[in-house]
């Protein structure tokens, strides 16, 4: 039982971030831990609700009130057991998740919600420090083999669950390192890669085999892979990026965010000293106001950009929860991420008319126009055209769906109306033994949904291979976040 009056005695606090002028000199994480005893105080604010709405905010089914109370009582070892019971990778979600659990926290109705995410990350960080996170080897092997294609959070969660259930699992990844977006999408300053490497080492010790630089459908065909494994989990993500078809798009210096960000990660991995695409001394424009855009902003600042401007076509969101997104839904708010604290401009309700280039075919500027929403469509506001100088433009406009061409052509897998890989209630595609998890089946989503799907598909694959399963299945393929 939590302290029933904790929320009345303590107000919400989050630990301070490192000072901006210090942290943009390096690539280390901007977060800091709480001092001694402060996290326990924060955890004591949890009210142990009769109906814990945080459970409906998070698809993982995290037992949030339970581990909040365990932290309050400083029983950290039980806390990590309860946390790991529903979440394979709390060190990832604790750093990267936008925390819909906190948006759904009952305290948030009329006060500041519990710092669930901070509690989560400090539980797992302490568990690693104490040596409590050890490989969990299966008691016996099933003799069944599973290939997981894609090594993002969905694929890794599926692989860990299936391996622990006794199956022999190989994870295929087309990039040269394992991790998917965790490796080459998330900048170092949001999650230092040693967290990922540490978890991968645990999985390898548990028996998972990693096969980077393996582009299934190209270097190995899908039918070949299918012939070699008893089941395949497609967890290739939603990597088909949206583009901006306006005049001048062909100019050099304009690229997708995912063509820009990975180089900074490679520098941190030690592959090179200077990235081939570098924002140093440049006027940088980031098109897209989401988290990927913010990652570009933070990366450009660290590379020493002359200026950074982030553009968003939607109007500036409200500071407070708007009426159309009542508690416990996840509201669209004006959020100041760590990257935004570090500088740069943000422009809302603007659309790109054209890119402007020089004689060498390199971009030199961008022409914008203000837009307003009329009957669900953006309409330009005449006379608001303006130009900004630009040497480097990144497009961070979201992802349309999976790159599933070879799945369709080589296996005959069907796509759904949205272009995602179609699947039944057991996560199986229209082709037997081919399962689909994560953004490849769902469309672009949050890391918690990816891990939840990975856990659920593991349960479905285990049932398919063995006829029954004891693995948990936190979500169905059709489950969606809570909305009005």
């Amino acid at each position: 039982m939590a302290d029933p009056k904790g929320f009345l005695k303590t107000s919400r606090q989050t630990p301070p971030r490192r000072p901006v002028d210090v942290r943009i000199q390096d690539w280390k994480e901007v977060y800091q831990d709480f001092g001694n005893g402060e996290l326990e105080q924060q955890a004591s604010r949890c009210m142990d609700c009769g109906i814990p709405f945080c459970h409906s905010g998070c698809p993982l089914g995290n037992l949030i009130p339970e581990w909040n109370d365990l932290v309050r009582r400083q029983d950290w070892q039980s806390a990590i057991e309860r946390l790991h019971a529903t979440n394979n990778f709390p060190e990832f979600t604790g750093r990267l998740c936008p925390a819909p659990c906190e948006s759904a926290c009952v305290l948030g109705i009329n006060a500041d919600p519990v710092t669930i995410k901070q509690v989560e990350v400090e539980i797992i960080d302490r568990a690693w420090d104490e040596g409590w996170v050890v490989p969990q080897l299966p008691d016996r092997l099933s003799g069944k083999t599973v290939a997981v294609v894609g090594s993002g959070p969905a694929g890794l969660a599926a692989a860990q669950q299936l391996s622990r259930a006794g199956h022999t699992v190989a994870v295929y990844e087309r990039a040269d390192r394992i991790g998917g977006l965790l490796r080459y999408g998330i900048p170092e300053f949001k999650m230092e890669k040693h967290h990922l490497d540490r978890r991968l080492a645990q999985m390898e010790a548990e028996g998972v085999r990693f096969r980077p630089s393996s582009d299934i459908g190209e270097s190995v065909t899908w039918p070949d892979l299918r012939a070699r494994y008893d089941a395949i989990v497609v967890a290739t993500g939603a990597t088909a990026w949206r583009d901006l078809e306006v005049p001048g798009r062909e100019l050099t210096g304009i690229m997708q965010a995912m063509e820009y960000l990975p180089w900074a990660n490679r520098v941190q991995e030690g592959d090179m000293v200077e990235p081939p695409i570098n924002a140093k001394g440049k006027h940088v424009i980031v098109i897209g106001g989401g988290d990927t855009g913010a990652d570009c902003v933070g990366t450009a600042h660290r590379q020493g950009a002359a200026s950074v401007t982030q553009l968003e076509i939607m109007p500036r969101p409200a500071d407070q929860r708007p009426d159309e997104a009542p508690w416990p839904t996840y509201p669209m708010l004006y959020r100041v991420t760590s990257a935004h604290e570090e500088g740069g401009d943000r422009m809302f309700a603007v659309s790109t008319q054209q890119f402007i280039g020089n004689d060498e075919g390199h971009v030199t500027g961008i022409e914008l126009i203000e837009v307003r929403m009329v009957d669900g469509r953006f309409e330009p506001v005449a006379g608001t055209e303006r130009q900004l100088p630009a040497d480097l433009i990144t497009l961070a406009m979201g992802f349309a769906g999976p790159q599933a061409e070879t799945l369709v052509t080589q296996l005959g897998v069907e796509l759904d109306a949205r272009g995602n890989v179609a699947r039944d209630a057991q996560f199986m595609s229209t082709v037997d033994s081919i399962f689909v998890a994560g953004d490849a089946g769902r469309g672009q989503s949050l890391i918690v949904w990816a891990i939840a799907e990975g856990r659920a598909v593991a349960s479905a694959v285990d049932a398919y291979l063995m006829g029954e399963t004891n693995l948990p299945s936190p979500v169905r393929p059709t489950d969606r976040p809570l909305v009005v």
Partner: protein
Amino acid sequence: MAKTRHSTPGVGLISPPPHHDIYSIEDLAQLIHDLKNANPQARIHVKLVAEVGVGTVAAGVAKAHSDVILISGHDGGTGASPLTSLKHAGAPWELGLAETQQTLLLNGLRDRVVVQADGQLKTGRDVVIAALLGAEEFGFASAPLVVMGCVMMRVCHLDTCPVGVATQNPVLRERFTGRPEFVQTFFEYIAEEVRAVQYWKASGLDLEPILHVPALPEGTSRRHVVNQDHGLDKALDNQLIALSAQALEYAEPVIAQIPVRNVNRTVGTMLGYEVTKRYGGAGLPDGTIDITLNGSAGQSFGAFVPRGITLRLLGDANDYLGKGLSGGRLIVRPDENASFDAATNVIAGNVVAYGATSGEIFLRGLAGERFCVRNSGVTAVVEGVGDHACEYMTGGRVIVLGPTGRNVAAGMSGGVTYILDLDSTVVNAEMVDVETLDETDAAFVLSSVRRHFEFTQSTVAESLLKDWDASVKRLSKIMPKDYKKVLAVSAAAEREGKDVNTAIMEAVNG
């Protein structure tokens, strides 16, 4: 809240309240009779848990003259309900309701009661189903609460409701955002849906058994058409009211004497109703109506009697003496010609002063089990009691000048009990401590024993008073632990000139 419940701010109460005045259908009939006497205008409701056999219970309740029978389903429950009750008590109200309707019809009892249903009714469809199964009234609680902002925290009993619904904490009450219009709109929707429901069906269910209408004589009503006959016209109180006319009309003193028999149940209660109706909760000046009764009184002698009425009974009494006593004074002593030893004979039955809130009781002789159970304000003097004395007591003073049974003071959260020659092994020490009397205690007990002697000519009191210095040493004091803390806080606040309630809330809320 504490004032309404005649308890002490800052001291927890045992919830749900145990009904130690009801162990049989006869007990229930007595309670219904008592309540009807206490307010003949009121409809007396009896709430029954839907489960197999509820129809039989409902038939008994109808025969016990309940005006309304409420069939409550297994889905409901307040946020303070124990999880065991929420999860494991009862059956669907649909089944209990069908069984009740059919059993009442078969026994010719349906026409005299109103049948009500509740237990997580949420929609117009629920109302229509309940109506089809026989209900005439429909209870909603959780759904309107949610409409007002309840998030089902299940902390109603902890005073920490974060949305300000079930709390006395001013900080949290600020957070309440409900408005009356929300509830009004909710019920408008319910009414709209009831009108819209043309029919309903549930495939795969054989509904014949629960929609079954028993073969009935022609003209039998399937709903409430006549009122229960509570037999109030036969009450002795009709004479008491006539004798007390001067007091009722002009607040002038009345002294009367009248014989009583054990068929006279709930004596004094309807008289009390007439006083309260005219003079409100404050009643009349002490002793305005002073009635002496000779004989053996029936059950619930002096139930709910308000301030201004003194009933002196020369003889003896049955169970429930002084139930819900609300300021009146009850004195019972043997007849002057009785040859037995009053101090070793029973003079009143079980469950004396159940739920009484104020007033005085003097019993020259022994009383039965559960003496002063749930007493919250009465001062009672008695010369011996049975088991479970002062159970769940929340206030008042009890003085026992003789033997006790086992399990004294179980669940006692307030009030003080003084016992002569206490065998401390019989005390249930979970919530109380046994202490010695201080000077204030001793003075209070002395004056009470003097009054006991004055009112009853008790030989026990007489011999104790002869050598009071020795007698007072034989007394022990039973003091509830939290109650003692709160009393200390409020005394300190008074000394320092602080607001007492604020000080208590500060101490309790930490």
